[in-house]
């Protein structure tokens, strides 16, 4: 996977994870163009599109678009599963996740993503293990709170 973007239906970016080195300017340009392209797609169209020299896999969950750019030899269908797994993880963690959760707790969304994917590849295929690791890491945060979803900063 080269990068993953989450954005709302109005085109506002909610998360961006880049697995390839690009300048800030390039990232902005890519984001702008890709967001426009995906938002222009009609509902009946399939989840894959060819964009520049990459394959883009996207899926909409409620008000958020999850968009991944993969290389030519990568499997689009399994990427859809990866996206789905990530959504499931978010859902389990936040308890019925919605866009607001991701807006207000964006750093947690990143932490979860980083426990699931590393360098663009899934590092752990067990949902339970990933969630457990996050839980444990949260407990390490200072000051230690009983409930990890109380804002620390």
């Amino acid at each position, binding site marked *: 996977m080269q990068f993953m973007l989450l954005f709302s239906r109005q085109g506002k970016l909610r998360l*961006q994870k880049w697995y390839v080195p690009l300048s800030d300017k390039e990232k902005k340009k890519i984001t702008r163009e890709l967001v426009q392209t995906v938002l222009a797609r009609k509902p009946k169209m399939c989840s894959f599109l060819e964009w520049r020299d990459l394959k883009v896999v996207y899926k909409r969950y409620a008000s958020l678009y999850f968009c991944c750019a993969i290389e030519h030899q990568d499997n689009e269908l399994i990427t859809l599963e990866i996206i789905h797994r990530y959504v499931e993880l978010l859902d389990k963690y936040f308890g019925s996740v919605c866009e607001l959760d991701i807006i207000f707790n964006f750093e947690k969304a990143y932490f979860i993503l980083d426990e699931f994917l590393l360098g663009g590849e899934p590092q752990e295929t067990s949902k339970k293990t990933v969630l457990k690791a996050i839980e444990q890491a949260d407990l390490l945060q200072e000051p230690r709170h009983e409930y990890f979803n109380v804002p620390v900063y």
Partner: protein
Amino acid sequence: MPAPIRLRELIRTIRTARTQAEEREMIQKECAAIRSSFREEDNTYRCRNVAKLLYMHMLGYPAHFGQLECLKLIASQKFTDKRIGYLGAMLLLDERQDVHLLMTNCIKNDLNHSTQYVQGLALCTLGCMGSSEMCRDLAGEVEKLLKTSNSYLRKKVTLCAVHVIRKVPELMEMFLPATKNLLSEKNHGECELVPQLVRILKNLIMSGYSPEHDVSGISDPFLQVRILRLLRILGKSDDDSSEAMNDILAQVATNTETSKNVGNAILYETVLTIMDIKSESGLRVLAINILGRFLLNNDKNIRYVALTSLLKTVQTDHNAVQRHRSTIVDCLKDLDVSIKRRAMELSFALVNGNNIRGMMKELLYFLDSCDPEFKADCASGVFLAAEKYAPSKRWHIDTIMRVLTTAGSYVRDDSVPNLIQLITNSVEMHAYTVQRLYKALLDDISQQPLVQVASWCIGEYGDLLVSGQCEEEEPIQVTEDEVLDVLEGLLVSNLSAAVTRGYSLTAIMKLSTRFSGVNRIKKVVSIYGSSIDVELQQRAVEYNALFKKYDHMRPALLERMPIMEKSASNGPTEIVQTNGETEPSVVDSKHPPPVSQPANQVGALLHLFLNLDLHDTFGMRSNSFDLFFRANPNPNVAVITIHASNSTEADMTDFVFQAAVPKVSRPNPAQIIKCLCFEVLIHGFGVFCVGLQCDFLFSLRMRIKLTYTLKGSPVQDLAEVNNFPPQSWQ
């Protein structure tokens, strides 16, 4: 100084902004506060400030002043600090900035931290954005960690190692021994490289239910896919490995549940693997049948990947793919644009001599109803297929007509000369063709390529049209005046492009030798002698001259065109597919190969050929062009007709043909009569001729000079002709 506001508080505040300007103001205010807080080296709130900065960065605002702060956070002892610090590093830093190298030491320390979650943070960061320098520096630490017994860490280290190797391939050797050990582990997270995969895969699909790793009843699909991918890499050029995998691949292909996307994902990966390795033909057929089944799936995503994969294999496994032709053709009617495009490309790839009639029917129907973005490609594809496999000339002409009338305005410019050439060479169909084109013009004059081809044909074969000679269908009754009405109509219509007007004026002129009533034509031509359009004016003036001073040459000049040699085709190239190649060359097939001739090489650029009707042809070849002459044995004048064609894709402009003959001692030396130029060589062909008036009768020598501009550079070519046959002056 009061405590900086909390992250969530800031987010809430910013979201209340009603305008972009308001938001910007809030952000600037907060940034200023954060900056002064950074200046004060405040450790307590650094984490909070950086978190806020990251939020603002995501909104699109600059945050580079936070980069060093991230480094300070990473160096902190607090886990919270490190977490945000590493996140900030991954978001704000990249390998282009020297600052990132300062992280190296911190990462090194954290890789050896006592808390596995800290180690995890370091590994994640390194594996995500480590530059090659960092990777080189830290490779040793990573390699050490590979030997850890901690399963949580091992999977992270492995993936991090993959990143390191990708960045610095030379380090691969270092990691090889460690990876061999990884495979015997039961933990699902780190099976990465090397054999025994077959065994593992087998276990996976045969073994019982493992709820942790399950997705919709399939055990650990991510792992299965990864293993299949690995098998693909290993079997790619290796016969033995490929053979060892045959069974398991067949097993996965037949046993996997296909009701959900996840099962299909595994099947898809299996198909990709089978296609890439040196598999036996039975397995390949199995793979293609899986793709065929995918085509019938309700899920459009599945159909899409099926079409894409079939497109990649259609060259190598042509027969197997042919079996699914009807399903593919059905996909032309799909609602999704990408699916339609692929179905179209695949359909063209599957057309052959046996199925041409049926396929063409479907493709023409598609051409009628498809979106404009497809029409040009589809039209070109139809022309190409028709040229290759046309069962009869009549069918061929009909097909062309159909394309021109339904998608005429989308047809590529270079199709016009190709079509003209085709029509000229189908001698027995001239009457039929001109009749059909004429009828089409009566209906619609807006589609320029159609109009251009039609004008040209009417100019050439107008006599057949009015004499009602058509055999193929009921001949229509049309008078010379009606024909001229139509052509003149084109000249005045707003819909006609400049090029089209040129075509129709020339056509009118040609009819002066084919029709009986010349006066009308003379009138038209003289009117356009004062046209504002320079091109039209020039033509009209020259044609006028033809009527006035060179009327005796006119019949010869305006004679029927001869059969033309086929010039270089510049249609889509074939999709080149080698076994194991996964990169589709589909993109290439849409673009003709680039013309890379140097500007000073006329060479293949000009084809000059000849009107073969009456007399001997003769010619000469120089290293730059072919020149054919035909001489009309008129007592006073040797008329030399030269037909030229420009087979490049660029326009040739400012074309000048000059000829000179030596002065001789005879009383009336040879005189070159003005050179006339018809259709200018706008990447098609043109006709021009030279009239030579001489009444001496021994061997003639002629020097020829051609100058023109091609792609902005002037080109010049010289030649000498001295083998005029005796007949030319007898």
